[in-house]
Structures are given as C-alpha cells and as structure tokens.
C-alpha cells in the first residue's frame, strides 16, 4: 500500500472504534459526553472534550470509509458518502441536496473552501436574532486556531481553468474576486475532493479531529442512527440508537442505549432537528426545524474553444463576492459566485435534457466550464426558507418554499454569470434551465434569461450547504438554543453544528462551524468542570 491510511493504522493500534452493523445483541454504553454526528461540529467538539479529559463517545449514522476506499469513482462515492445515497432532495423533489453521511460527515466530501463567517452575517445575527457574544473580534482567535489546526490557507497553486474563468471574467468587467482558502496539506491538485480525498491531503475530520479524540481515549460507534432522546422534565436521560446494515440503509433491529452526563447533537441541518422532532423534545415556540436554509444554487454553463478539463484540479479556488453585499445584508438577495467540479455523472444530471441534446452537451465536457451562484437565503423576511418535517417512517425531509424575492436573485445571478463567462471569452453560454440552451452572444443570453419561466423543475437548482433549523437566539421564542449552543428547555443538551445558524452564512460554512463549535465546546468544558 503506497499511500498510508492513518485511520486504519489507528484502528490497528487499538482505537475504540465499533461497527454497529455487526452487533449481535442490543448494547448499553456510557460516556461523559455523547456526540451525535462526526462532521465539522461533532468532531471539533470531540477533540477538545477528549483533550480536557472527558470520556467522549461519537455516534455516526454513516459508514466508515477511509483513504484506501476512495477510488475517485462517482457511483461508489455517491452511494457510500452522501445522505440518502445522493437521493436527498427537497420535499417537492426540485432541489438536490448534497450532504455527507459517513465518518467525517460533509467534511469528507466538501470541496475544501474555508471562509470565515462574514462580519455582515455576525452583525445581522446580533441585531436581528438576539445572538450575543459571537461578534467578529470574539470569533477571530477561534478562526485562527481552526485555520492552523486544519491547514487553511489561500490556494497557492494556479487555479484550474474552470476557476480561472471567474478571475478572467471579473477582471475584464472590473468586478471583485479573490482566491479561496482551502483546508489541505500536501494537496496533489487532483480534483476529487467530493469523492473522499485518496491521499489524505484534505484536512477533513477523518484525518484530524476524530483521530485526535480517539488518541485521547475517545470512542466511535458508526452505522448507528440516533433515533431519539429520552427525557424526564428538563433533562435528557438517555439516547436511543438503531444499528444500521452495512449500507447504512435499513435498521438491523439491534438497539443501542447510551447514557451520558451531557449530550451534543451534531448531525447537521435537517438531521439534528429531526432527532429533536422524533424525540418530541419540548419546543414551546415551535422553532425546531424552522428557518432551514440552503444557499440555494443555480447554474450557468459555458463552452470555451480551449480545454477547461473541469474534472481535474482543486475544485474551488477562485470566488467572487461582488454581488454578495451590494445592497447590505437585507437588500435584494445577494449571492456568492463559485464553480463546481464537473465529473461526468454529476455534469450529465446538471446539464439536463436527454438523447441528442444531452449527448451533445456531454460531448463538449472537456471544454465546458460551470459557474454557480449561492443565494444568501434567510436575511430578508421575503427570502425562501425551509422547514424540516418527518416522513411516516421518522426520516426527515425539507420543505423548502421558494418566493418571488428569491427567484429575483436567481434571475439576476443568471445574468451576472453569463456576463462574466462571455467576458472571460466563452463562445457559448447556457443558463441551466429546461427552456434554455447554449447561446452565442451576451445579448441573446440576456433576452433569454429575461424571458425564462423561473419555476421549480424548470430552473435547475441544488444545494450543498444545509444551515439552520435549530437556531441560536437568546430569545427563546426565536431559537432552539441560547448563544452558548445550550438547548433552551433541556439543560444537559447542546447543539454543535450548522443547524445553529439563524440565517445562511453567505460563504461555504465549514470554517464557520469549526470556529463556532470550538468556542462553544470551550465554554461547555468550563461549565462541565464547575
């Protein structure tokens, strides 16, 4: 094995790691702190709690896959590493939601973009959502600490041609752009971050905080779904989990009961509110699962005469926030411009159509660039917003309701993306929509976009960032937790993940989750010691 697999080496050295799918009997476990979820929030918390001498147990619903398993193949990655086997969608089936589900959570499959929470966002939370103690200055040392921990630095190699389009187009139009900071060490610039890093260069939770916790006496139970919390009055008594089969799909019938002094939910947006909903946790103001945001994303494809090879190279290295805060936090919807990597299966579903139309678009893949606009949802009262509901089998689904305000942002973003693409030298641009196709001039693109019927199923929409649903607010009528991440009604329960955000972030959220959860965990350690 030429490439080391530190996780497997750790297991061989005696880490306490258990595969719940293999359980032959029900199981009872105890810990000082049980953490549900091993992604950005859960693993960051686990490392710090273990370092403070607490006995930590991480419970993860997904499977354990390590660098040895990462073969850079889309079908395997989507089936193994993504929520619902890449089948997660909004309730109406119109928005594909890409979210991780494996040991390491979404950090295993994200595209490594690592932004600090924009100061505008933090100010908005303080003024509109009764959030305290999370201002820019308080968070700064936590951003610095997590950036050092995870090797976050602006990408120093040349951007790949797909990302270069943003830079070239923005420069031609005098729009602002910048280099994206990435959480990598020894990155080989392969381009397969979304399928699990095969060389352990991405500083995901799998190679950083989870090993650190396990090295300090922490333990990990995977393929175990946290089903519900059992409560008496204002305290959690225990956590009930179901063991899942090797695919992480069906329960095996084995149950796991976990008792702890303190409980942390870190399953991320959608899944954390779902545990509270299944538990019928106290929620006097009906806040749980409400105001869930997506950074709803639309797409603009462009063909260039020169090869772009959008499947190779660091997937995201250049962005533009030019249209993000143009009208302040609460004006017309702002958005961030980035690119996605385009591997064939993903590209074919985004480019849409079938038969000759899709075949022609796909034949041009090596010369195709794609741009995305991430809508900064949740800042304006008229913004689209989602609510987490439970299906009849207790699994969660997000009902995301579009609004004219949000469609207006989508239409402006189509315009801006086409402008940048043509300015960068695109021969043809395709605002990705069922009624559109490639057009050869900006004028034609603009009249096409102005006349598009912006509706679900016709405009191609996606999301890779689920945020909110268990909002932080010191006002219990507005949020599920206070500004310390403590549940308003249950005293030994905290939430440490992206579901805490009162709005979307306005930037890829991983570093916001790391820094916030590190801060909340330090505060929790002090409370637990008191």
């Amino acid at each position, binding site marked *: 094995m030429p490439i080391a697999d530190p996780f497997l080496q750790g297991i061989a050295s005696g880490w306490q790691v258990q595969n719940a799918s293999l359980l032959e009997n029900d199981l009872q476990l105890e810990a000082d702190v049980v953490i549900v979820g091993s992604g950005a929030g859960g693993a960051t918390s686990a490392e710090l709690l273990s370092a403070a001498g607490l006995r930590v147990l991480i419970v993860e619903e997904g499977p354990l896959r390590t660098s040895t398993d990462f073969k850079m193949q889309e*079908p395997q990655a989507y089936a193994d590493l993504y929520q619902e086997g890449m089948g997660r969608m909004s309730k109406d089936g119109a928005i594909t939601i890409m979210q991780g589900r494996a040991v390491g959570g979404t950090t295993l499959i994200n595209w490594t973009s690592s932004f600090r929470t924009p100061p505008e966002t933090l100010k908005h939370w303080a003024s509109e959502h009764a959030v305290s103690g999370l201002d820019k200055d308080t968070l700064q040392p936590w951003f610095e600490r997590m950036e050092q921990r995870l090797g976050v630095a602006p990408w120093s190699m040349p951007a790949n041609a797909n990302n270069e389009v943003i830079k070239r187009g923005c420069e031609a139009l005098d729009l602002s752009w910048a280099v994206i900071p990435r959480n990598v060490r020894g990155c080989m610039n*392969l381009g397969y971050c979304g399928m699990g890093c095969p060389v352990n260069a991405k500083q995901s939770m799998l190679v950083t905080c989870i090993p650190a916790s396990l090295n300090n006496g922490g333990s990990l139970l995977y393929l175990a779904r946290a089903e519900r919390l059992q409560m008496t009055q204002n305290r959690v008594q225990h956590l009930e989990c179901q063991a899942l089969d090797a695919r992480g799909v069906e329960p095996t019938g084995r149950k796991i009961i976990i008792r702890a002094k303190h409980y942390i939910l870190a399953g991320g947006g959608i899944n954390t509110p779902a545990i509270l909903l299944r538990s019928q946790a106290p929620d006097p103001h009906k806040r749980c699962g409400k105001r869930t945001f997506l950074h709803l994303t639309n797409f603009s494809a462009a063909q260039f005469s020169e090869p772009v090879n959008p499947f190779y190279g660091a997937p995201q290295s250049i962005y533009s926030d030019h249209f993000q805060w143009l009208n302040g936090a609460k004006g017309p919807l702002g958005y961030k411009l980035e690119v996605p990597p385009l591997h064939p299966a993903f590209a074919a579903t985004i480019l849409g159509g079938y038969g000759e139309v*899709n075949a022609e678009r796909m034949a041009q893949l090596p010369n195709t660039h794609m741009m995305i606009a991430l809508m900064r949802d949740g800042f304006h009262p008229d913004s689209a917003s989602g609510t987490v509901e439970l299906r009849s089998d207790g699994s969660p689904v997000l009902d995301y309701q579009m609004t004219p305000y949000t469609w207006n942002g989508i239409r402006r973003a189509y315009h801006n993306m086409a402008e940048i693409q043509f300015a960068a030298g695109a021969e043809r641009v395709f605002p990705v929509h069922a009624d559109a196709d490639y057009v050869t001039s900006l004028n034609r693109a603009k009249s096409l976009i102005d006349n598009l019927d912006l*509706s679900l199923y016709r405009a191609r929409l996606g999301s890779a960032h689920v945020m909110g649903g268990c909002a932080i607010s010191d006002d219990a009528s507005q949020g599920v937790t206070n500004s310390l991440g403590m549940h308003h009604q249950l005293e030994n329960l905290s939430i440490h993940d992206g579901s805490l955000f009162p709005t979307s972030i306005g930037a890829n959220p991983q570093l916001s989750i790391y820094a916030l959860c590190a801060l909340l965990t330090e505060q929790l350690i002090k409370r637990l010691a008191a």
Partner: protein
Amino acid sequence: MSHVAQSTEFSRRSFLKLSAVSAASLSVLSLSASLTGCSNDPASNGFLVLRSDDILCLSAILPVLYSGAVAAEQMNSNLHSTLRAIDNSLASFSPEMRKLTVQLFDVLNNPLTRGPLTGVWGAWSQASSADVQQFLKRWENSRFDLLKMGHNALLQLAMLAHYGQPSSWQHCGYPGPPVLQ
C-alpha cells in the same frame, strides 16, 4: 415558452379528464397501481431493487435517453450494465426515497395508470422511441408537479448511472481519474 408547451400538452390530453388525478399523490396512484399486485413483486433475479416490470420499462426508456451518446450496436450491452448501476443506486437510497422511486415505477408499469398518464397504452416493450419521447415531453411539461418530479427523478437516475461507468467516458472526453503511484 413553457406556457406554450403546457397549453398544447394540456389540450392534447384534456379528454383524459386528468383533473381527477390532480389531487392524487404518487402513493395514491401507486396504491391503485399496486392493487393488481405489481408493487409487491420481489426484485428480479440478481437485482436488489428493480423488478422484472421495472426492467422492461427501463429497457424501453433508457435507449431513448442515451441516444446520441451510445452507438446503436452497443445499446444492448450498455443497457445491461446500466440497469445494474441504477439498481445499486436505488439500494443505497434511503428507504423512503427508494419507496418513492418504486412507486414511480408502479405508476409507469400498471396499465391503469400507464396509459392515461404516459400516453403509452400498450406494453413498454412495444413502445416506439417516438412514444417514449412523447411521454418524456409530456411529463416534463405537465401541469402536475408529481409528474415533473417523476421526470426529474427518472432522468437523474438514468444519467448518474450511465456516466458513472467508464464505458461512457469516451463520448464525453473524460480520461478517468489519475493513477496514483
């Protein structure tokens, strides 16, 4: 422009009195479809999820979806591996998403729902490319969200399955992942 598509689409089939269906959910449709037992069929031999009816239906639809990307003489061998890939995808779906997809196939397979909703009145194995194209157009431009959702789901499954396979990569100029030393 979709308004035009929708109105011609609607007039073409208005005689079907589909308004009665507008309030029905996929599960109600699927229930009526399953009354004749098709949704209770076990997975076809060697498959985890797909049933023999699903395979017949997909065998009619997939060649239309891949025309232009797969040479006619390779369509059959391609079909076999793609059905496997779709089956594997479905086996990794959450139980609820898999159920919804199976219900979609129920609706496509059962003659009671297939005819009125797809315009394909005979068996899928008898459907021409033109029939399949008509059906796809009809669902894409339907006024019923349920059918638009079904159209999306079908295309997504089919495209992910096809382009996930190395045999599809020559067409799209993808050299495949780099070889790591």
